[in-house]
């Protein structure tokens, strides 16, 4: 019980320290925690909180789902096929280090200012990590599993669905969890530039329209909390028994 309370106690102590420091300091560098709570209250009252959270989650969902649907099958095929891997790998390695944010001008050129641009940027942010995860997962399948599958007379389609797919699932889930975190990072940045709703927009707008730093920090807190909840959701997938095994257990 005490162990479980420890992080809560730590957060409470930091909040008090924050309140005290801001009150004593002559120059206004940060809103107080109370002001932030007030800011969240304001947003709730105007119905903006729910609207912005939904807007951001909507973009993340589309970008992430598109990324999964395209990158995972492609990665599995490339990872499976040595020649395809040799052909694609240099291109992937060149495109991968480019931050999705560098694509912002091109996204706006192609899709205009709006949801499509933001979704495209999130999709880019998800695509390469997922592609590499899928490629590595296929390459990492121990040969004994594939040989055993062949030995029992599985045809290629059955080999994919009954051996290859279950063998890569644990690694895919870990990759998807990390990538969802990336998507959540990218949505905030994309919303600062390409759209006029969402939590990223809230932060930029609160500063531009009257230096409402209480709303800025309120936006940051909400981003953090939702990021945590998304991660918890993905972690609960990892707890499913038939998915939870891993090679390292032997």
């Amino acid at each position, binding site marked *: 019980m005490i162990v479980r309370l420890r992080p809560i106690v730590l957060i409470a102590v930091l909040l008090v320290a924050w309140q005290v420091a801001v009150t004593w300091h002559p120059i206004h560098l940060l809103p107080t925690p109370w002001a932030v709570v007030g800011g969240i209250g304001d947003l709730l009252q105007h119905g903006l909180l729910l609207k912005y959270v939904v807007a951001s989650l909507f973009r993340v969902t589309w970008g992430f789902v598109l990324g999964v649907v395209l990158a995972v099958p492609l990665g599995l095929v490339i990872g499976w096929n040595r020649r395809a891997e040799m052909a694609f790998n240099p291109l992937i390695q060149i495109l991968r280090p480019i931050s999705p944010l560098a694509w912002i001008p091109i996204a706006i050129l192609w899709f205009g200012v709006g949801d499509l641009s933001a979704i495209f940027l999130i999709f880019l942010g998800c695509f390469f990590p997922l592609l590499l995860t899928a490629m590595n997962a296929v390459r990492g399948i121990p040969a004994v599993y594939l040989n055993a599958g062949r030995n*029992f007379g599985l045809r290629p389609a059955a080999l994919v669905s009954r051996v290859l797919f*279950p063998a890569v699932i644990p690694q895919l889930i870990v990759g998807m969890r990390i990538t969802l975190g990336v998507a959540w990072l990218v949505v905030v940045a994309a919303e600062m530039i390409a759209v006029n709703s969402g939590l990223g927009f809230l932060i930029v707008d609160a500063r531009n329209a009257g230096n409402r730093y209480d709303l800025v920090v309120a936006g940051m807190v909400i981003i953090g909390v939702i990021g945590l909840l998304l991660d918890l959701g993905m972690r609960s997938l990892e707890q499913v028994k038939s998915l939870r095994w891993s090679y390292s*257990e032997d």
Partner: protein
Amino acid sequence: MAKVKLQVEHLHTVFTRDGKSTPVLEDISLEVGEGEFVCLLGPSGCGKSTLLSTMAGFLSPTSGEVKIDGEVVSGPDPRRIFVFQERGVFPWLTVEGNIAFGLFHLTRPEREQRVAHYIKMVGLEGFEKAYPPALSGGMKQRLEVARALAVNPDMLFLDEPFGALDSITRLIMRGELLRIWEAERKTIIFVTHDIDEAVQLADRVVVMSARPATIQQIVDIDIPHPRDISSSRYLELRDGIFRQIGLAHRI
């Protein structure tokens, strides 16, 4: 000897890597009768696992051929199952799911009946719904043997199946394997580097030389089961094989 099950004829295998070719198997010829238990004996790295994989159809020989029931082996086949060290069980399936893996062509009641039969045979009752990471090494090994037997193959290839087990579990597993073999009379090719294991189990022991592997000698083990491992005949055969290994590998 009973009807010939497996024939290996002038088998040569050369591995090529980075432009360098390494001969692994050199002119191996061998006949195995139906229902026979044969051990391939040699030190690690001598090529005995390569020979076994070639017999099972996972590797193609450079020249020569393997015939089973008179047909040239061209790939793996569910009529002959390869048992890896216990790492071969699928960790994403339960004990039941693993045993049922090769039974997809059966109806549901047939499948359930056969799974139950083999769970009982290898003593895994009570663990039907368990996943392999929750099993001990010996249990995983029994599970893999049960999965192999469930498809009713006429041959089993075992590649140092008990190598990763502790010495007591290994003794128990040898007894279990003999019991199953006596009940089902499959043809078994068993790879090991353990002289005692070979002499305890096999009808014939094929002693292999260092790489490139050739057959140094084939020893008939003419002791009926259950074998008394302190009998003079047992010790004589074991010491004979030990000397052969010494000659072959200059120890």
